[in-house]
């Protein structure tokens, strides 16, 4: 033991102790959240996703350049940390090294140390180039990032200098393994005497160690908290792509607060989400609201919620949850919350699996159910759903009118059928979408599929109410529909609406509705594959396909609708700049269909412009709302005479006999 031991130990213990204390506060704050989140199902799958995405960096590598940079820094740091450990040990106990592992292993390990240091340094150069020269919008300005880059860069330089002067001063046997440091030593070594070089080596070792300890102190309060949080967050992510919203138990009278008025009304997992956020901005890059100048950016929402949590730290730790300030403030204002189309592009993009939409829904639930605060145009929508079971003001008696003359039977007339055709409100009442339903009914008849509809017994699935935040209304409608379907012992359901599809398939099971649910694109692709339908008439046209968010990002269905298009003779499918899971929303999801779009560019126009760029003559989709939004977009762009918006069912109906 030397003076170094006695200087180092108190500093290290202080730094790590403080760091631990901060982490423990963060953990306490997480635990104080009121909302529940059970995430310990299917442990093997969780371990697998953690291996693939943390060790394998798969999600990070979705974005090539920064992905490789991050992987270099991530693995570089893991390797360097073992080196740092050796320095800590040798400082505490003079001269103790990891040489006990044997010469060949030790030199290999040292080689890795230098390689990792070089990789991290290059990573830092690339990151700095990107942040200060390229300056992508997604990154924005960040003091945190500046500090971290400076820290990391200095740390690597200190390692190289430490090793170089050490080599120049002591000429160790393993000098050649540290190939970068050795190269540097030949250039720096001659500048001073050997003892001076050795002393400089020790000096930079201390610089290195102090920077590491500084890091330990700094991490818990910076965006670099992701170093610790992102791993667990990956392990605890929602596993399936098809996720339903969490139901509220209205029978439980002990629940007084519905939705989230305060950060602490959210769940501990939401806090872990903020801790995991690295502010990379990939969510923002894909966000339809942000890209059309709405005040919502998913990245800022997460950091604002984090700041709100931190601002309320003392009250939360003192257990005074009543005094915690509200979420809705200058930053997270109502325009931010209502701008979300629930397209889930942010969640697809996030490399650390933050779930942005759930937070927005919970905040909406509080605004709608507790405070009756929502855009005024939504009130008649709720009222219509309450009285007529449809967001639009139409009588339920008219629900089956779309099928007039098609001899379509209702379940009341004949429930002994292969499949229930769930029509949905758009298919029932919207003039444009009635035609889609007529085309799909015609296809089912051609393929000799025996089906019935519910007619006036069908009600809105409740999706718009649920996404807007009216869980109570949603559950009323859901329970009524499930009661009706179960009364007819419905087993299989097919629908042309991705919103109905998602709700009946993924959300009704929480309320006793278990059905085999097909979207019409899946159903048609299946009929074609089974040879029950074969498009024989050719359609000599270029067709671009617009992905519906609730089909694609919510349910991972990208291939089936495209299969329907490519099965048509002569039809040419072209993709827009954004497609599949990178697709741009039409602007109608999340209840936005029924809200006015007053801020920024209209989302449907932005998407229509992408469709027009392809020079396709037909914009195909497989969602009634997308069809409405894209048709409006084409009309706005005055291209109505040149470009048609069609559902894939219409294309298939036209080309089959």
């Amino acid at each position, binding site marked *: 033991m030397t003076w170094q031991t006695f200087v180092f130990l108190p500093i290290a213990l202080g730094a790590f102790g403080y760091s631990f204390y901060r982490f423990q506060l963060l953990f306490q704050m997480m635990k104080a959240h009121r909302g529940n989140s059970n995430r310990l199902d299917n442990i093997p799958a969780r371990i697998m996703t953690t291996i693939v995405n943390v060790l394998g960096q798969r999600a990070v590598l979705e974005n090539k350049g920064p992905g490789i940079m991050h992987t270099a820094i991530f693995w570089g740091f893991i390797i360097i940390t073992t080196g740092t450990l050796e320095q800590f040990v040798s400082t505490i106990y003079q001269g103790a090294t990891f040489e006990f592992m044997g010469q060949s292993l030790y030199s290999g390990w040292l080689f890795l140390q230098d390689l990792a240091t070089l990789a991290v340094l290059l990573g830092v150069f690339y990151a700095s180039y990107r942040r200060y020269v390229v300056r992508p919008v997604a990154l924005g300005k960040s003091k945190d990032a500046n500090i971290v880059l400076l820290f990391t860069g200095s740390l690597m330089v200190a390692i190289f200098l430490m090793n170089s002067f050490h080599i120049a001063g002591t000429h160790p046997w393993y000098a050649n393994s540290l190939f970068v440091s050795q190269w540097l030593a030949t250039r720096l070594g001659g500048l001073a005497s050997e003892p001076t070089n050795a002393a400089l080596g020790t000096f930079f070792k201390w610089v290195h160690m102090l920077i590491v300890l500084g890091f330990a102190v700094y991490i818990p309060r910076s965006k670099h908290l992701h170093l610790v949080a992102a791993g667990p967050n990956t392990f605890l992510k929602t596993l399936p792509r098809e996720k339903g919203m969490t139901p509220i138990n209205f029978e439980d009278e002990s629940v007084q607060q*519905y939705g989230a008025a305060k950060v602490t009304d959210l769940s501990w997992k939401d806090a872990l989400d903020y801790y995991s956020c690295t502010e990379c901005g990939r969510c923002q890059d894909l966000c339809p609201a942000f890209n059309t100048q709405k005040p919502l950016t998913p990245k800022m929402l997460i950091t604002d919620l984090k700041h709100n949590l931190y601002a309320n730290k003392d009250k939360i730790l003192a257990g005074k949850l009543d005094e915690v300030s509200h979420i809705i403030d200058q930053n997270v204002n109502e325009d931010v919350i209502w701008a979300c189309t629930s397209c889930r592009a942010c969640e697809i993009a996030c490399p650390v699996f933050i779930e942005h939409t759930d937070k927005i829904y919970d905040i909406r639930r509080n605004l709608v*159910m507790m405070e*009756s605060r929502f855009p005024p145009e939504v009130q008649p929508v709720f009222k219509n759903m309450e009285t007529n079971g449809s967001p639009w003001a*139409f009588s*339920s008696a008219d629900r089956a009118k779309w099928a007039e003359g098609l001899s379509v039977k209702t379940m009341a007339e004949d429930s002994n059928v292969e499949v229930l055709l769930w029509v949905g409100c758009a298919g029932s009442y919207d003039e444009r979408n009635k035609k889609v339903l007529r085309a799909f009914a015609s296809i089912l008849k051609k393929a000799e599929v025996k089906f019935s509809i519910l007619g006036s017994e069908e009600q809105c699935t409740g999706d718009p109410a649920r996404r807007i935040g009216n869980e*109570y209304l949603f559950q009323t409608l859901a329970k009524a529909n499930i009661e009706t379907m179960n009364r007819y012992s419905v087993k299989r359901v097919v629908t042309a609406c991705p919103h109905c599809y998602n709700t009946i398939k993924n959300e009704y099971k929480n309320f006793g509705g278990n059905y085999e649910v097909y979207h019409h694109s899946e159903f048609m692709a299946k009929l074609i594959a089974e040879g029950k339908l074969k498009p024989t008439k050719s359609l000599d046209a270029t067709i671009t396909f617009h992905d519906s968010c609730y089909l694609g990002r919510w349910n991972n269905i990208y291939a089936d609708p495209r299969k329907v298009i490519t099965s048509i003779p002569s039809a040419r499918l072209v993709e827009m700049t954004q497609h599949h899971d990178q697709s741009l929303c039409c602007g109608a999801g999340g209840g936005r269909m029924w809200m006015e779009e007053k801020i920024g560019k209209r989302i449907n126009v932005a998407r229509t412009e992408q469709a027009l760029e392809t020079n396709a003559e037909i914009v195909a989709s497989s969602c009634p709302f997308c069809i409405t939004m894209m048709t409006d977009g084409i009309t706005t762009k005055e291209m109505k005479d040149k470009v048609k918006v069609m559902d894939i069912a219409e294309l298939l109906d036209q080309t089959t006999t």
Partner: protein
Amino acid sequence: MNIYVCIKQVPDTETKIKLNSDSTGIDPAGIKWVMSPFDEIAVEESLRVKEKNAGSTLTVISAGPARATESIRTALAMGADNGIHIELPENVDNNTIAKALAGALKKEAHFDLIFTGKEAIDDGSAQVSQILGEFLDIPSITVAVAIEYGAGTVKCKREIEGGSFEIIEAALPVIIAGQKGLNDPRYASLPNIMKAKKKEIKALKAADVGVSDADQKIRFKNYQLPPPKQAGKKLTGDPAAQAKELVRMLHEEAKVI
């Protein structure tokens, strides 16, 4: 302040009205019942007065069949304190309803303000608020689009014919019938919906409020549906010919000029 609001349950505007087999009334099957939209305006106005005057009580009253209690619950969910339901059969006339409401109100300790909608959207007769004024012998102001509340007085801006307005001032107690534009009715919050489920609704019978079949001044003998709407006609040709044809049609077919 003791505030009362009188409401009526009516078929929803989107309901397809069908007549019963002998055309003596409408067929109740499949009808979605809602609070008359003008009555929602009245409830909203009464809630705003209640909220501005601490210690006020707001009671919602409806006279009609048992189903009317659903609309009373809706008003309670919006924020009314108490409910009174006077059970009357279907198809009673305005006089019977007004007398029943007056009977119930006279049983109360005292009333300062009584709100109604300007009319119920089912029969659209717009009479109850005025007949009620007669029975209670207090002023009744109809078609109010703005109300200023003074000390023991109200100043109402009401719509009159020809797109004009008149201002009427009255001393309390007074009946005010609200018109569209007076306010935007609120959407009940969930805690209030839950609370409303537990609130008690006072149940009164016709006899309790001094109403009998003899009060029925109008009896409905036969109902008919309006003729189905004709499809629109599009005039073609040069503008002069179109104008000429339009004048001819307005004169000979529509008989409006």
